């Protein structure tokens, strides 16, 4: 049983590793463009900062109820954020991802939901694409002025924090910022390894920074740098969403792993 959950985590890890060549190349070109565009004003639809009247909140939940309080934390945080937005006089709409969130919001018709997206055991690029497409059209058509993503951030094997990140507007540098304005560089990537230490399952967390100094400075652009940025950012949006959903899968597997671990301990004690 523990092996099943561990296998899930391993598959998610593999997916994260498989996604790396994509995001590394993306970041390299993003940096190169920003070097060239330093003094210019970047006017690309996805980076458009405008006065916020309506916010889209993407709420990512898990599929199984076994995760216990896990999904409830996210949904509570979603309700809190909705309340905050209402107090600020802002309109909002929810995009729900995952069975638990979907059934929660279906039971509450007073909360406007733009789309229900089914989660799955291992998020694929197609699912990230569905989220990205919806969010892209909402933002570019100016139906919403900001898109926030609510998910759990992996902290350790026993701790996860529900986090709200601003997904759109993107910063031209590709930074990801949370709603308190704390930003993470595009070149930084966090990854975790599931290992065992003294027979116990642990997860080690590392941050790696892509080598920005080595980027080739002689990169020429076939088209205007702004046009390239325009083509690049939707790809960046997709990969960010996928990365976050995969991190989420690892989180979802965690409580089940723990559950089995405790059960095993109990069995051994007797």
């Amino acid at each position, binding site marked *: 049983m523990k092996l099943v959950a561990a296998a899930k985590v391993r598959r998610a890890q593999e*997916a994260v590793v*498989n*996604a790396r*060549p*994509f*995001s590394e*190349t*993306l970041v*390299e*070109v993003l940096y*190169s*463009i920003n070097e060239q565009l330093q003094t210019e004003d970047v006017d690309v639809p996805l980076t458009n900062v405008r006065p916020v009247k309506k916010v889209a909140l993407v709420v990512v939940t898990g599929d199984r109820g076994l995760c216990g309080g896990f999904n409830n934390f996210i949904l509570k945080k979603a309700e809190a954020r909705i309340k905050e937005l209402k107090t600020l006089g802002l309109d909002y709409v929810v995009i729900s991802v995952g069975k638990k969130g979907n059934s929660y919001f279906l039971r509450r018709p007073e909360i406007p939901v733009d789309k229900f997206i089914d989660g799955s055991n291992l998020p*694929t*690029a*197609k699912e*990230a*694409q569905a989220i*990205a*497409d919806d969010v*892209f*059209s*909402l933002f*570019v*058509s*100016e*139906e919403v002025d900001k898109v926030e993503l609510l998910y759990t951030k992996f902290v350790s094997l026993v701790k996860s924090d529900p986090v709200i990140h601003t997904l759109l507007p993107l910063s031209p540098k590709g930074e990801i910022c949370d709603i308190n304005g704390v930003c993470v560089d595009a070149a930084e990537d966090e990854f975790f390894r599931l290992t065992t230490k003294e027979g116990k399952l642990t997860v080690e967390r590392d941050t790696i920074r892509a080598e920005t100094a080595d980027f*080739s400075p*002689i*990169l*020429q*652009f*076939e*088209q205007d740098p702004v*046009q*390239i940025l*325009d*083509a*690049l950012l*939707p*790809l960046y949006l*997709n*990969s960010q969403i*996928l990365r976050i959903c995969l991190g989420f899968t690892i989180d979802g597997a965690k409580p089940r792993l723990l559950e089995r671990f405790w059960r095993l301990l109990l069995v051994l004690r007797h």
Partner: protein
Amino acid sequence: MILNLFVLTPSRIVWDSEVKEIILSITSGQIGALPNHAPIVIAVDIGILRMHLNDQWLTMALMDSFARIGKNEIIILVNDAEKNSDIDPQEAHQSLEIAEAALRKVEGKRKTIKANLAFPQSRTRVETINVI
């Protein structure tokens, strides 16, 4: 001199091989790349990627993407790509008809944006299988 071609999606490597030449569709037309091409970054349109290898030309449908040509290495980053052999002709034609109908009837800014994306995507898939 050989060119290494990689086509990457966010979740996997779709194509990884040596090729003799490639042709991409970009907004201002088409662009071909032979070995020893100058390093360059190109925004690529939704369209067909043609690859020349072993005396054959293979085609692939690329959704929004961009290409980075380095030292005899071409990396194409795309959200989704399909080899012509992987596309089901009937399904592709059906999707095209649906997308065409949607584009004709569409109203509202947001639906227009969606339809404007869906149509070239399905058209590209049909064109990919029709190319000889």
